[in-house]
């Protein structure tokens, strides 16, 4: 059984107590280093011996990275804030309830007690060919095992594939994109702020990464501007099991209304492409119109223009259409 086979190979562990020490370690060890947050995604990789970094930098002892605080422009959520802290934070609940709801939709209670928001948005894809250590494009090889007609690709891309057909599995990511959040990334002594839409990268940009984070980079916090605070933000996730599981498709839609009229909106889906996808065509199609059943239906129809499902994931097309429709039509659910 699992126990003996899964002893994790020897690695050098660092548990720095400050961000400065952590970025110094990451600079020193470069691509040999692995950033360790909650550890849920990480330890699976290590146990399966698919990823074998020489150095692990555990951020668990850096208290300042756990803070969630108000700023003049909104909220700043430390990358190491646990999902449960995001779920329970009073200001997130009142200003951005969809974010709390999305965080609560992720994984299981035990994982939310340990998993972090930084880890949730930076986690690797769940494509099982890749995770089982097959030498696919994403693993540095020159083939995709999930895209041939005979492959098991029920959970894979219907949009935006480029050689690799794996999807981004995050639940909080689409909400953060919808809210216009940005990610604060430290590298050495410098800091850069990356808009959420640019934070996630697809295989056409870099097939071996899910985000802009390169060796030496450290995601320190997520800034959520007050732009969409208190507006109508809808999140819904569909998954096979009603707990633990990753999304088949999820949707996050922020709408600012004037009476019945949709003044402005942002529609984002995830689980359908290598990155969370902002559906600007949908936004443009219904901006300025009344929010009703008809508009919602047209939004759903616009959402699925240009999809390219694989052998076993055609169901995701209808799922995406209906989720986008509901996200316009229905009242938001809360945690």
């Amino acid at each position, binding site marked *: 059984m699992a126990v003996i086979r899964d002893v994790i190979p020897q690695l050098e562990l*660092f548990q720095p107590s400050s961000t400065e020490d952590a970025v110094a370690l990451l600079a020193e060890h470069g691509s040999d280093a692995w950033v360790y947050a909650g550890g849920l995604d990480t330890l699976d990789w290590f146990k399966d011996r698919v990823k074998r970094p020489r150095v692990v930098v555990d951020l668990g002892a850096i208290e300042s990275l756990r803070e969630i605080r108000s700023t003049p422009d909104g909220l700043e959520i430390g990358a190491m804030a646990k999902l449960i802290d995001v779920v329970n934070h009073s200001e997130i609940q009142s200003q951005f309830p969809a974010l709390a709801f999305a965080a609560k939709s992720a994984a299981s209670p035990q*994982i939310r*007690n340990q998993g972090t928001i930084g880890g949730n948005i930076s986690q690797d894809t769940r494509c099982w060919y890749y995770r089982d250590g097959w030498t696919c494009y994403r693993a540095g090889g020159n083939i995709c095992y999930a895209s041939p007609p005979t492959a098991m690709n029920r959970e894979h891309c219907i949009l935006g594939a480029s050689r690799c057909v794996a999807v981004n599995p995050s639940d909080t990511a689409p909400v953060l994109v919808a809210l216009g959040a940005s990610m604060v990334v430290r590298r050495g002594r410098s800091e850069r702020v990356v808009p959420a839409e640019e934070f996630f990268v697809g295989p056409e940009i870099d097939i071996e990464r899910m985000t802009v984070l390169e060796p030496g980079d450290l995601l320190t916090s997520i800034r959520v501007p007050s732009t969409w605070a208190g507006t109508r933000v809808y999140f819904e996730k569909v998954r096979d099991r009603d707990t633990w599981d990753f999304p088949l498709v999820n949707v996050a839609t922020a709408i600012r209304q004037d009476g019945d009229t949709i003044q402005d909106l942002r529609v984002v889906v995830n689980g359908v492409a290598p990155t969370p996808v902002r559906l600007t065509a949908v936004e443009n199609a219904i901006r300025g119109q009344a929010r009703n059943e008809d508009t919602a239906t047209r939004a759903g129809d616009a959402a699925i223009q240009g999809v390219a499902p694989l052998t076993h994931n055609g169901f995701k097309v209808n799922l995406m259409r209906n989720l986008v429709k509901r996200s316009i039509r229905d009242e938001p659910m809360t945690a």
Partner: protein
Amino acid sequence: MSQEIIEVAGETAQQGVSRRGFIKGAIAASAAVSSSNYLFRSNGGALLAQTPAAGAVERLITVNVNGRSRRIDVPPMETVATTLRYKLGLTGTKIGCDRAECGACTVLVDGQPHYGCSLLTHSVRGREVTTIEGLESEDGTLHPMQQAVLEEQGFQCAFCMSGFIMNSVALLNDNPNPSRKQAAEWLSGNLCRCADYDKILTSVQRAAEITRGA
């Protein structure tokens, strides 16, 4: 794996008749315990005394388990479940999937349920770990949740039981009177292959009753 070597060597030392056996055992043990990583590390240089890098971790650490401080030798990538079972002999904590999916390894860390298989022992230094062995009181009285499981026959094979009980204890601490729906949601990170979920939820209700003195 080095721990196994230590224990084998230790046994040899205790049972061995010859002094040579003892000395060999002692050498093997000490090498495995302290120096092999440093002596044979591929990047070298460790034989000369270096200032440890910021955040470098010691292998000998103290972990508080069930109210006792335990001094243990822990490799960097050892999980809490492994440490509990194979270093401390607390085999009540089970390892099922070892992938943060099934919940059999659930233990409490500072009162919060965590998957012990997916938490590094080095991450629980200075924190309170509670396992199924730490639930009964000193006079042997079972925790209400344990008593409830006995009364309601909550499990068939019970491999998943420790994890369910630990998570239920956390639930009852958080909410002494949970509804079945609340309990089901709280326990949704634990799997029971015998599918005894109904009896498990009944046990949680019974534990709440026992706590209320009903």
